């Protein structure tokens, strides 16, 4: 079974339904998805119908959908928000938390209420604290490529043939494990320390320093130094680190997978 084929024939064009749900985020994640530019048209032409997304379409009630992209953390003092999150879990088969807020709380971890006009809005939790989330796409803002890869692989997981399902499962497994791990929803530079450096896994490659969206990480004598007073808890450093998760067999076929992803987007 050659699952790492580059050519794309045999993908049945049988669209899935996809929705974007905006909780307490800043729409940066939706902007990142839209920053696939022409790729968005390929996805919407061939693979997915956008059935919900207040920012893009006029649908006002959440319909049933195959894949729900949730952006933003959830204010547990806002009944509308908590009800909506439960409704999304109920109505979608795959729930993907996109961006730092939905995955690990991001800047809303610092919120503590006391502000007009609702001083009691003080507690914001990542989505996976309230419902089971299937896949995480961390980082603030998530990258268009990461969102595209996850969307394509999720499509293959749902509609691909056996080989494609196997490949999609392999690719998505670490992001699914992250969604269920004890540290996934609490990711910050701390996680990089506690789950990589303190466990003797860091080899000073610098991936974290490059991935950090607030330049909180510098490399000192070959090891990351994270300014906790700059970190926004987005989880990019931990997830980008090759020693957070790494699948040798998958990565050895990087050329074929990159090729396949490019072909899918033509």
């Amino acid at each position, binding site marked *: 079974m050659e699952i790492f084929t580059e050519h794309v024939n045999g993908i049945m064009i049988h669209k899935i339904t996809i929705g974007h749900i905006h909780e307490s985020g800043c729409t940066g994640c939706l902007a*990142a998805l839209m920053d696939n530019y022409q790729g968005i048209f390929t996805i919407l032409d061939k693979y997915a119908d956008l059935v919900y997304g207040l920012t893009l379409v006029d649908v006002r009630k959440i319909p049933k959908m195959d894949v729900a992209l949730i952006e933003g953390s959830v204010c547990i003092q806002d009944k509308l928000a908590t009800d909506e999150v439960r409704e999304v879990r109920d109505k979608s088969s795959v729930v993907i938390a996109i961006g730092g807020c939905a995955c690990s709380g991001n800047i809303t971890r610092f919120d503590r209420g006391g502000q007009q006009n609702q001083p009691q809005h003080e507690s914001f939790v990542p989505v996976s604290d309230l419902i089971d989330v299937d896949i995480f*796409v*961390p*980082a603030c803002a*998530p*990258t*268009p*490529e*990461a969102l595209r*890869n996850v969307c394509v692989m999720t499509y293959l997981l749902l509609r691909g043939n056996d080989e494609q399902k196997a490949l999609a499962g392999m*690719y998505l*497994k*670490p*992001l699914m*494990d992250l969604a269920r791990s004890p540290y996934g929803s609490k990711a910050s530079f701390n996680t990089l320390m506690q*789950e*990589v450096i303190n*466990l*003797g*896994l*860091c*080899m*000073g*490659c*610098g*991936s974290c*320093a*490059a*991935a*950090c*969206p607030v330049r909180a990480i510098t*490399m000192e*004598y*070959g*090891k990351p130094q994270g300014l906790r007073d700059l970190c926004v808890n987005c*989880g*990019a*450093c931990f*997830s*980008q*680190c*090759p*020693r*957070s*998760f*790494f*699948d*040798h067999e*998958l*990565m*050895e076929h*990087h*050329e074929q*997978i*990159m090729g396949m992803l490019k072909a899918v987007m033509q």
Partner: protein
Amino acid sequence: MNVLGKYKSVVSARSTDKEILKASQDGGIVTSLFAYALEQGIIDGAVLAGPSSRPWQPQPFVATTRAELLKARGTKYNICPQISMLKEATRSYGLDKVGIVGVPCQIQATRKAQLYPIGMRDVPDKIALVVGIYCMEVFPYKGMQLIVEDHAGQKLQSVKKMEIGKGKFTVITERGNVTQLPLKVTHKYEQPGCHVCLDYVANTADVSTGSVGSPDGWSTVFVRSRIGEDVWGKAMAAGCFETKPIDQVKPGLEMVTKLATEKITKNQKTVDERAHFGVGKALRNPYI
């Protein structure tokens, strides 16, 4: 377990560029390949390990001219966080076709940045040439300083070249004296992160090169990916390298396989031991 990874061809090679060969670690493969690629516009810059304010401490930098490339020659054997400059190369440096050289873990990081670009927006498609170098282990700067200044009794500032090979850690100074240490002495200073590494010859690079398996002054070069094959082919056509078939040189591919097997077996054992490091508790294993 194919310890050498997938490759399209392997050959013993040496650069034909005298200037590069003057101060290269072995066959001058990396510097020549990048010099050629830069000239031909295959890449418009490369992330390399260049000099820093401290002697023999490398610092990643973005080289966009031949002169800058030459500054990065010679292995430093201590940690150089290459990937920390990978994104910046596409940002304030404005590059669109980025070359990068790295040890196997850094090549793995590069491929992860392409496949899981969690924090690497607009980097995946801008990586144009990935050159890997063999690596048995890497020392933190202070560890390497200790080896050279205490065990080898040399001043870091006066060291001209360092080599690890044939079971020896060799230090050569500017004024020509040579000190050799048994590798056994240096093991405890190795970076712990290296002890879980299961890749000796940069299996996922486009082209990977190292001294092992080839005679002195030559390098054993694996051509692995389509890009690697394409760039290596053009460079060969342009006469950048002279090559010998790998089976006609001593000690040949068996030595590479031997060392690779040795490293991967040793480290796999470490990975397995970590599974029961505590009492009924494991240290987290990043590999799926």
